[in-house]
C-alpha cells in the first residue's frame, strides 16, 4: 500500500543477495534475512505467529448454538465481496 514499500523490498532483496556470502558462517542452508522496513518485519513476524489451529474449531463450536445471521445480510455481503 505504501509506494515506498516496493522500493524497500526490492532493495532488501538486492542487499540480501549481495550479502549472502558474508553470512556463510551460519550453519547449513541458513542465510541472513534483513528487513528493509518495519512493515516487512511485522509481516514476517505475523507469518511466524499464525492463530493456533484449534482456534477455528473453538470459534465454530461457540457459534454453532447461536441463531444463523439473517439471509439478507449475507446476500448484501457477498454481492459486495468479502
Amino acid at each position, binding site marked *: 500500500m505504501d509506494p515506498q514499500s516496493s522500493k524497500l523490498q526490492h532493495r532488501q532483496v538486492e542487499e540480501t543477495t549481495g550479502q549472502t556470502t558474508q553470512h556463510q558462517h551460519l550453519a547449513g542452508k541458513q542465510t541472513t534475512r534483513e528487513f528493509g522496513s518495519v*512493515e516487512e518485519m*511485522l509481516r514476517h513476524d505475523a507469518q511466524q505467529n499464525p492463530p493456533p489451529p484449534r482456534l477455528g474449531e473453538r470459534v465454530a463450536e461457540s457459534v454453532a448454538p447461536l441463531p444463523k445471521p439473517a439471509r439478507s445480510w449475507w446476500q448484501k455481503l457477498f454481492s459486495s465481496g468479502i
Partner: protein
Amino acid sequence: MESVVTIPEPVDTETRPAPKRPRWESPEFGEIYEEHARGIYYLALRFLGDSAAAEDATHDVFLKAYRKLGDFRGDSAVRTWLYRITINHCQNLLQSWHRRHLFSNADDAVWETAVAPTDSPLRLLETKELGERIQKTLDALPEEYRLLLLLVADEKMSYDEVAELTEQTADAVRGKLHRARKAFVHHFQKTA
C-alpha cells in the same frame, strides 16, 4: 533507508501437520474466519503481548462479529469492521486488566507456545527472540503508533481504511507513520 535488523533465516526442516478443519454451521462465516483470522490474531497478539490472551480475544472477536452480523451494513470492508471490533476489544482488555503489571514478567512458556511444537529448536529460538524484541519495541511505543504500524503492515489494508479505523485523514496517517517508523527503529535497536 537502513535495514532494521538481521536475523538468521529459519530453516523449515519439518512439515507441520495439517490442522483439523473446523465444522462450521454457517459455511459463509467459516469463509470469513479463514480469510481474516490470521490478521485478527496477529493484531491481538501484538496489542496484548500474550499468545493465550490473543487466542481468547480472537475467539471473542469472532463471536461478537457473528452476533452483530445483522448490524453490519456493509459500509466498510469486512476486514475493517473486524479490526474495529478487535481494537475496541483489546483496548477494553488493556484498561481493565492493568496488563503492564500482569504480564511484564511473562515467562518463556508464553512465547514457546507461539510456534508449532514440531518446529526445530533453532526456529523456535529465532521466532521467540525476534518476537520478544518486536513486542518490547511495540510496548515502548505510544498506542497510536503501535496500532498504525500493525495496521499498515497488513497488506490488505489501504491507507484510507487505516484512516477510517483510526478516525483521522489518510494524510495524517502518513505523517504519523513516518514518526512511528522512526520510533520503532530507535526502540528496536535498543532491544539488541
